[in-house]
């Protein structure tokens, strides 16, 4: 499992570092909200999921999309605005989707997919499926009405659903303490009747093991469940760089996190030759994905008026 977790973590890290590097060339045609520093939450939880399980996420969704098995080439092509992108260049970085991998959508409007995830979970429950739904969102989303409304609905209908709050401490540039009178997200979830826990977002094997136990309970009808996971965003809210010069947080705060980097910690548990094999595999795959994106075509002008309604989608598929 450690090898798999390391592979998944490093793959996301390297992909995003490459996105950040290429960003300056203006080849990427979409604002990017990098997950760097937060990858471990998606990797740990998704380790416990099957392809048939469903996830919903946020505009900071690269890590979730990849950890759940979303197509890497289609993602990079999407960032480049190419026709081969996962949404044909129409959604960009903030609206990644891969139905075959169970990634059912990410949103730029904070909190919206929490409610969407509950509806999907309701559908699975009525179909007597043993698949589960995991909703990923940030600490900011817990201030939205949809969050509270969805917690209530999930408990009311005993949905096979795991809520994962990636608490990175900031909504854009505003700290949780400046936004929440009582900054106890776990406690709020518990008050609604969920089993709710606070977890360490830098302990990937711990997250994976615990997620596996909880997901098994959800499959057995013992949902819903809630994780508040402590994590940290290393880069700026949007864009490839760092933002300590803005003064809303200190670099020292981040240095503690970097020193505790799960990528380094997991590597230390693997033989050196294994580390190198994985690194080389990932470098080749990432380079290949960027080549694919670069060499793909932009969509045809006719694509502007497709995918609006079913009829315009049909027109496209029969064209």
């Amino acid at each position: 499992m450690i090898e798999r977790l390391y592979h998944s973590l490093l793959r996301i890290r390297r992909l995003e570092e490459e996105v950040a590097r290429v960003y300056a060339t203006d080849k990427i045609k979409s604002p990017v909200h990098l997950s760097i520093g937060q990858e471990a939450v998606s990797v740990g939880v998704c380790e416990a999921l099957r392809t048939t399980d469903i996830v919903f996420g946020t505009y900071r969704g690269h890590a979730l999309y990849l950890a759940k098995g979303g197509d890497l080439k289609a993602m990079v092509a999407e960032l480049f605005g190419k026709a081969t992108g996962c949404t044909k260049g129409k959604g960009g970085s903030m609206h990644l989707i891969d139905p075959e991998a169970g990634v059912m959508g990410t949103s730029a409007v904070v909190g919206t997919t929490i409610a969407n995830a509950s509806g999907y979970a309701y559908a699975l429950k009525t179909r007597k499926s043993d698949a589960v739904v995991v909703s990923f969102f940030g600490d900011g989303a817990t201030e939205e009405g949809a969050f509270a409304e969805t917690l209530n609905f999930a408990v009311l209908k005993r949905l096979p659903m795991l809520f994962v709050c990636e608490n990175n401490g900031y909504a854009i540039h505003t700290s949780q303490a400046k936004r929440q009178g009582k900054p106890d997200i776990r406690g709020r979830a518990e008050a609604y009747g969920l089993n709710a826990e606070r977890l360490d977002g830098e302990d990937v094997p711990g997250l994976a093991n615990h997620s596996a136990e909880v997901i098994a309970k959800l499959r057995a009808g013992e949902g819903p469940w809630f994780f508040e996971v402590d994590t940290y965003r290393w880069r700026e809210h949007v864009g490839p760089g760092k933002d300590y010069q803005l003064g809303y947080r200190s670099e020292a705060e981040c240095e503690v996190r970097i020193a505790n980097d799960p990528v380094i910690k997991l590597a230390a548990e693997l033989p050196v030759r294994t580390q190198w094999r994985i690194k080389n595999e990932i470098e080749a795959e990432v380079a290949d994905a960027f080549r694919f994106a670069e060499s793909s075509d932009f969509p045809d002008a006719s694509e502007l008026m497709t995918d609006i309604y079913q009829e315009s989608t049909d027109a496209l598929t029969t064209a």
Partner: protein
Amino acid sequence: MPSQLLEPTPQAPSLRGKEERAFAPLLLGEGLGRGSSVRTLSFVDAVREAAEQEMVRDDSVIVFGLDVDDPKAIQGTTHGLLEKFGPERVFGTPLSEDAMTGAAIGMALAGMRPIHVHIRMDFLLLAMNQLINVAAKSRSMFGGRANVPMVVRAMIGKSWGQGAQHSQGLHSMFMHVPGIKVVAPSTPYDAKGCLAAAVRDNDPVLYVEHRLLHFQKGPVPEASYTVQPGKARITQPGEDITLVGISYMQVECLRAAKYLEGIGIRAEVIDPIWLSPLDIDTICESVERTGRLIVVDTAWTNCGAAAEIVAQVAERLQGVRDLRMKRMGFAPTTCPTTPVLEHLFYPNGRTIAAAASDMVEEEECGWMPEERPELQSIEFKGPF
């Protein structure tokens, strides 16, 4: 129950084909197979029957919303569904319009076909984020990889002091946004056929009901059928002026046509039925003949459905022929409760007839028809 009046044309169901210029109603039940009987049903029963038939036909169809499973069953439109289909497929929700709309979208993404019911359209404002930012956008922003087959039923209130927050017609807000369809049937026949079509559609559909239309009665085939998106219907043929009546204002336009008949003006009345996609062709063909158009909406005129229809006709027919056009709708103020003021807030058959007569005669002579008892308004008598 108030008296039932003015059934909008007894043989209403005539989808106007491109080839037919005159008013040529299809026989009811045509194309529905042998043995399909046609009964007189209320709008309420037509909605209920469509939901029931769709739920039998497809077990992915479910109905939910505030109070759909309570004893009053949304004016009867969901009556009996809980008993027949059980609480998993028919359930009342928490008072959470935002999340429940989001949940409907999630169900639709999973392949279910939810019908989410709002007893007043005003409550849709609590659901706008999910409807406009997610439901309408999903197909497009996910590059065609997502279907959102959901129906949102929303009722416009009128009469007996519904007031500021129970009377709004907000359908034009949804017409503004690509990716969501809007339908506003005015007859029991269309109520059934449009709801079936909306349920089977793979896009989100806003299904607009007017509280006063619930009392309408009319012929409805027993067998299942659909009234497809994007087709208007000429409900009364005429050559002097075109009246387009949206939702409940269709009834008032038919009433106006009767008043106008009394002074020798023959109005053509059109029910657009589907507002998005809108059948502008049928409206333009009519206006090209009459040269005069009044669009009457159960909503404000500013940036509304009436404004849109007039604008499209103007774009299409400017320079083709001389045109006179007008919008009618709510007075540009907040709906009051006291009957004296409320009466002035809405257009009605008499004020529409007066405006039409002035337009045809090209002068304002102050004519207003005498109220005719046989055309009495169907009023909701209240109290609740």
